[in-house]
């Protein structure tokens, strides 16, 4: 299976979704996945264009796709942002419906467009490409041991089924499977493909915040410690608006909102700064970092836990009745269950384990150019050091 794609970064990758782009490129570099940026790509139009004018909403993506066909022939296109993916795929779908449609697009963009190259979302290529999954597993230096994560797909990645041709619209599993690979524990929850409000957060904030609150609430009551997303707007909305939701509703949600690529990158050895983890609104560094473990250590711990659970489930041996023979009485004492482990490391507290460098200092974040294209400076909120580390979410009182 191919490890080379034409890459459509999308506008968010250069701005509010910088961390998504950084972590994606880190993964690509590390596992040898070649993402070739489409030269002179333009904005896909997102949700704004198709509300205004249908031709515009199709022409904008069509131009980028046509450029990709010409300059990166033979390569399928991958887009990390869910909206970009949706628009690009819809345009290709439209073009393939009939020759008239395709000709119409060609006349709009004044370029040839054969609509042959396929369009995938980033989540899709990782989920469906065994070579990529194997490469990730081969280069994993850490696992996210037991991080309870709610995989939030958003509304655009898995709908409409006839267009996106990917996963299930009501209970998708692809992100869950990928994060399980890196050691996390995806929780079962009911708002996986629920809308985050998208641009409503700007135009109709009160309605938008209600939608974010619902997502946070359901993730929390289903035991999630954090949320993973695959869309820059989902990430932004659920992350940036969390504090405002708390102010408005008196709740105290404190769920870090990750890009699934950030989590994978961490397991591949990235530092939080390398992948923009320190750019989040809701502090996200500690939660994931604290779960990172050496894979062998994590495996040993898991084995020990399993053994303990099995031993606890075994019925205790019945105490032998006391006899006059004192020598045998001692031997007849019921033996306490002894849990033995071969790894001495298991007995030590978590804090003593080797941790990857976690930079929690509130230095001004320097943007390290990780890709060939120049990145704009991203202003991030400074997080007060004193607030970290955060206690586990389960202790918090959840307001309805």
């Amino acid at each position, binding site marked *: 299976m191919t490890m080379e794609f034409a890459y459509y970064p999308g506008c968010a990758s250069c701005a509010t979704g910088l961390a998504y782009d950084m972590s994606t490129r880190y993964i690509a570099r590390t596992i040898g996945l070649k993402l070739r940026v489409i030269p002179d790509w333009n904005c896909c139009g997102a949700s704004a264009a198709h509300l205004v004018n249908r031709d515009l909403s199709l022409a904008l993506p069509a131009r980028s796709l046509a450029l990709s066909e010409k300059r990166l022939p033979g390569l399928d296109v991958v887009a990390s942002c869910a909206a970009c993916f949706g628009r690009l795929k819809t345009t290709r779908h439209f073009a393939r419906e009939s020759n008239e449609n395709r000709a119409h697009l060609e006349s709009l963009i004044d370029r040839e467009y054969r609509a042959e190259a396929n369009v995938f979302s980033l989540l899709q290529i990782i989920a469906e490409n065994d070579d990529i999954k194997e490469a990730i597993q081969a280069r994993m230096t850490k696992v996210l041991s037991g991080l309870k994560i709610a995989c939030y797909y958003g509304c655009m990645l898995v709908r409409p089924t006839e267009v996106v041709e990917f996963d*299930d*619209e*009501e*209970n998708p599993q692809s992100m869950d499977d990928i994060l399980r690979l890196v050691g996390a524990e995806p929780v079962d929850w*009911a708002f996986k493909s*629920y809308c985050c409000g998208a641009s409503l957060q700007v135009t109709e904030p009160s309605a938008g915040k209600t939608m974010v609150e619902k997502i946070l609430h*359901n993730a929390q*009551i289903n035991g999630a410690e954090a949320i993973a997303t695959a869309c820059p707007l989902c990430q932004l909305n659920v992350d940036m608006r969390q504090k405002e939701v708390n102010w408005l509703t008196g709740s105290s949600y404190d769920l870090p909102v990750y890009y699934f690529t950030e989590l994978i990158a961490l397991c591949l050895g990235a530092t939080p700064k390398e992948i923009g983890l320190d750019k989040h609104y809701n502090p996200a560094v500690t939660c994931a970092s604290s779960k990172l473990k050496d894979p062998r250590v994590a495996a040993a711990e898991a084995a020990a836990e399993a053994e303990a659970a099995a031993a606890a489930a075994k019925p205790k041996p019945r105490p032998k009745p006391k006899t006059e023979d004192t020598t045998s009485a001692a031997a007849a004492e019921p033996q306490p269950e002894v849990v033995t482990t071969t790894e001495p490391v298991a007995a030590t507290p978590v804090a003593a384990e080797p941790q990857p460098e976690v930079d929690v200092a509130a230095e001004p974040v320097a943007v390290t150019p990780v890709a060939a294209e120049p990145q704009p400076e991203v202003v991030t909120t400074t997080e007060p050091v004193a607030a970290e580390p955060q206690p586990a979410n389960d202790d918090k009182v959840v307001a309805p």
Partner: protein
Amino acid sequence: MSRIGVFICHCGTNIAGTVNVSEVAEAAKSLPHVVHVEENKYACSDPGQNAIKQAIEEHNLDRIVIGSCSPRMHEETFRKMLSETSVNPYMLEIANIREQCSWVHKEKEVGTEKSIDLVRMSAAKVDRNVPLYSGEIPITKRALVIGGGIAGIQAALDIADAGFPVTLVEKEPSIGGKMVMLDKTFPTMDCSACICAPKMNEAGAHPNIEIMNLSEVEDATGYIGNFSVTIRQKAKYIDYDKCNGCGLCEQKCPSKVVSEFERGLAQRRAVYKPFPQAVPSKPIIDAANCRKINEDRCGVCHKLCGADAINYEDKDELITQEYGAVIIATGYELIDWTKLYGEYGAGAYPDVIDGLTFERLINASGPTEGKIVRPSDGKEPKSCVMIKCVGSRDPHKGKAYCSRACCMYGAKHAHQFLEKIEDGECYVFYMDVRAAGKGYDEFYMNTLEDGAVYVRGRISHIYPEGSQYVCVGEDTLSKKLVTVSADMVVLDTAMVAQESADTIGRLFGVTRNLDGWLTEAHPKLRPVETNTAGVYLAGAAQGPKDIPDSVAQASAAAAKVIGMFCKDSLESNPMICTVNEINCRGCGDCVDVCPYGAISTQSVDRRENSVWVTRTLAFINAGLCQGCGACTASCKASALDLLGFTNEQILQEVDALCL
């Protein structure tokens, strides 16, 4: 030499208004072989018919042309009239100068000229007519009813009471269908088993009814009055001649399986009766789950059986019998909503159930003895949401049609829930409420008075929160979003056709529509007949319906069968195809073309040129042939001809018009 009589009807002013009848009559006089022409005010009336009969006598006519209304109106009338004369009923041609002439044109010149042409054509054709005689089709006076639900049972009882033997084939171990699973039936709230079981018992005990349980129709050939049907009696592993139904085997069987009858709420054994009131009241062994049959272990039932009725070596049996008529009453299934509605949990939530499962819950003889409890934890639910039209009226994901019974059983469930649960809350989410039946709307109104809250809108999402289920919907009348946290959700799911209807339909040549329902001959005027003569439909097999309509259709189908059986034989249609053996070369193209399967090729010996030769020839089944003429057109050797519309007759008509 033909002696043709021509009779032009005025039909009051229907024809005479736009056609100069006298002119037409005058023109007819000069047609070849026409020896008598007459006008008539109303040819179909008594005096009109008598005038024709008299003319036939007086002028020694041997064939007649009637210029009148469409043959679809009165061809039968005039054929009957001719059967009382010396003229063969098929020596008749009708020139349609009404529906296809006087009713179409406005100017008299046009109408008259066209009528003259039509009469000339008919006269030319009738000149070539030959007398035709209908044959007799014998009738085997035994009926086959496929499907032992309430429709099948009712049809079987009606036919058996009329004195004719009936075989009732049912694929499940017991008859009773879906009706016997229900608790109470709307609008009277009769206990369903209390009204169904007596009929089941009557059918089981009736001397004229033979019940074949655990059986399916495997093959069928033949035609009306003469069907030959092969039924596979599946191995029951119990000898019903010896078994006395004591039930000891079932008590001791160690193999427990999920009960299909209890919709997954309870278990049954491998040797089992699906429910206590089963007819036949004897168990069967489910071979897939029997330890003795699969692993040669156990054998407890055999050891305990006092009647020595257990036979592990039993095999399927194929039984072929002759039947004169078949009634298909295969009923319905509920749509598998778990594959369509992921937003309702796709079956992962145990307390989100369908209507039939709810029926088993509230049934006093069900797994909870009639207590409404949540399947997940056995606790009594205080609040319930009922969602209608799940899979129905949904062309996008489900079926486009309305399943007809759900509005009423939804109201019934709401009523029962509120009756049984103290301080219970019941919300019914609907699009419309269809309560069109005797006492139906009153029943629905009563349910509203009971306190059921009807919300007009659909539920878009059900998800668990704590021990409850949050149902997100909308009240379209007040345009507000509505969220209900309910302990239990009942989905009123769509009725779909049984899968077996596909096979059965093919066997008997009955088509199905796009949704799988068997097609009736005419939706309004012939609802229980099919396009295959002798095969009838009854009940939900023809389309979603409730019990009263199923029973009505069953009796209607039975009446058709009894009407047929009361005759000694059936008259076959003489206007069928014939084969010219000289021209036929046995290519078999006609066999493929015939939509009624009426043609077959056979190898026969013929003496030709003083030598016996073996030839393949086409043979027409007079009982199946409908005289459509498709084979005649397809025959490359011109060996096939349609009696009553022979090639020669039609060419004469064309010549009369065009030359």
